């Protein structure tokens, strides 16, 4: 038996490590991409968000499945039934996109969505979401505190409130062809609420960029308030002196107030807010004061009569 003799390999033939590793990565990506191409549009179109760190704002509760979070939506710009947004929000173009930040600020600025994504480190926060219709979810949002953006524009002393305005374009948002609400959708916060670290400027969901039906490309999320406060597809943030009148306040002044804090003791005029159905659960849960965020936000409202400022 001949002893084994390794073949001679000239060093020029040896592929450098970083090159073969990058080739492997390319093959994996190509494989993944071709696999993804076989899947239905909505599944592979999602863009992953990189370098997202975990946040301390995480509730230890079971997440609502991604399928439910992205198929059961109140987004009247795309229709008033829950399943319509997921079906018809494809008409929304989220690139290019800008947010105009203006009003009572020293440095008004127009941010592109790319600038926003880099404005501050992205974090994943697992928040409870309580709808005014008495259902709830647990959602892994991605974004950063709105205060990070606010600091950059330097509000003046006259800035007492913040107003959020959603895109108004009936071609992209077919629900705006009917006047269910006054368009564009307007929401607002008091300055201290807007600066509160829990108020999340939201760019992603479940590790990916926001799906259109969830308010792409940028929305806010205030987990201690009913869902409708969390304006979606925002094109303008305005700093103002007087309390803005929101779309829902105009639609039903005795049913929807400016604050809309989750409060099991203050009923909606037509239904109770004491309990909620967590999506995916059978028995109803008791609704928590400020949706379970009382430790963080209750001081914002000390001394206020929450039955009047509902």
């Amino acid at each position, binding site marked *: 038996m001949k002893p084994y003799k390794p073949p001679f390999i000239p060093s020029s033939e040896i592929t450098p490590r970083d090159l073969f590793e990058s080739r492997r990565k390319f093959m994996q990506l190509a494989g993944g991409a071709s696999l993804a191409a076989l899947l239905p549009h909505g599944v592979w179109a999602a863009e992953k968000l990189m370098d997202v760190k975990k946040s301390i704002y995480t509730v230890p509760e079971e997440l*609502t499945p991604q*399928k*439910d979070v992205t*198929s*059961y939506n109140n987004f*009247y710009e795309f229709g*008033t039934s*829950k*399943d319509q947004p997921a079906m018809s929000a494809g008409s929304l173009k989220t690139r290019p996109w800008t947010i105009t930040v203006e009003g009572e600020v020293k440095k008004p600025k127009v941010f592109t969505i790319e600038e926003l994504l880099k404005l501050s480190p992205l974090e994943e926060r697992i928040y409870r979401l309580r709808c*005014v*219709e008495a*259902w709830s979810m647990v959602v892994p949002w991605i974004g950063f505190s709105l205060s990070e953006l606010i600091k950059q524009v330097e509000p003046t002393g006259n800035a007492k409130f913040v107003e959020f305005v959603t895109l108004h374009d009936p071609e992209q948002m077919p629900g705006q062809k009917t006047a*269910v*609400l006054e368009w564009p959708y307007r929401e607002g916060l008091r300055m201290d609420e807007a600066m509160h670290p829990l108020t999340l400027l939201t760019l992603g969901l479940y590790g990916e960029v926001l799906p259109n039906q969830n308010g792409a490309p940028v929305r806010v999320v205030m987990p201690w308030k009913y869902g409708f406060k969390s304006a979606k597809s925002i094109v303008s943030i305005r700093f103002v002196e007087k309390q803005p009148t929101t779309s829902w306040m105009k*639609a*039903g002044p005795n049913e929807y107030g400016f604050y809309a804090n989750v409060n099991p003791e203050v009923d909606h005029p*037509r*239904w*109770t807010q004491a*309990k909620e*159905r967590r*999506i*995916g659960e*059978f*028995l*109803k849960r008791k609704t928590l004061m400020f949706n379970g965020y009382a430790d963080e936000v209750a001081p914002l409202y000390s001394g206020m009569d929450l039955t009047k400022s509902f």
Partner: protein
Amino acid sequence: MMLLKNLNNQTIAWIKAVIFVLALFPLFKLGIAAYSDNLGANPIEKITHRTGYWTLVFLLITLTLTPIRRLLGWSWVIRLRRMLGLFAFFYGCLHFLTYMVLDQFFDWENIIKDIVKRPYITVGFSALLLMIPLAITSTDSMIRKLGGKRWRWLHSLIYISAIGGVAHFCWLVKKDLTNPITFAILLTVLLCIRIIFWLKKLRAEKS
């Protein structure tokens, strides 16, 4: 059109059988969706809405039969009225059972509070209660026992039930009134036709 004016018993029996099967279709569809986990993120809400919707649809269909008989002269359609009215009651009961069992899970304290305190539930619940005597007296022997005049008087409760049902729907939607208003308009038309008939009859009696 003339062909549809007079039908023999056998044809009517066939039509009744077909309508019976069709009327069960919404329930069948819900059952399939529930079995294949296709009721969406909030199945209880979907079942509640669907059963409520079909209750109103069958109420309105039932109320369409008398005008059809009067306006087109198709007297046989009245023989479908009992079955369609009972289907309205059937879906109404399913709607309430969904609320009682799936939505509230026998939380009697809360159910009673809802019925007393929430006007839309008060109205909807009353509308269903009013249908109970109508369902009980729907048999031939009950019609005979009561006599035509009293029976007709009792069964005019259906108007109150229908108005209550539509009011219940209008009252509960958050903002978009498109569907409830459609029901309200149809019901108004059906009731107006009856008022016109009634006024004509009054005038005929006077002269």
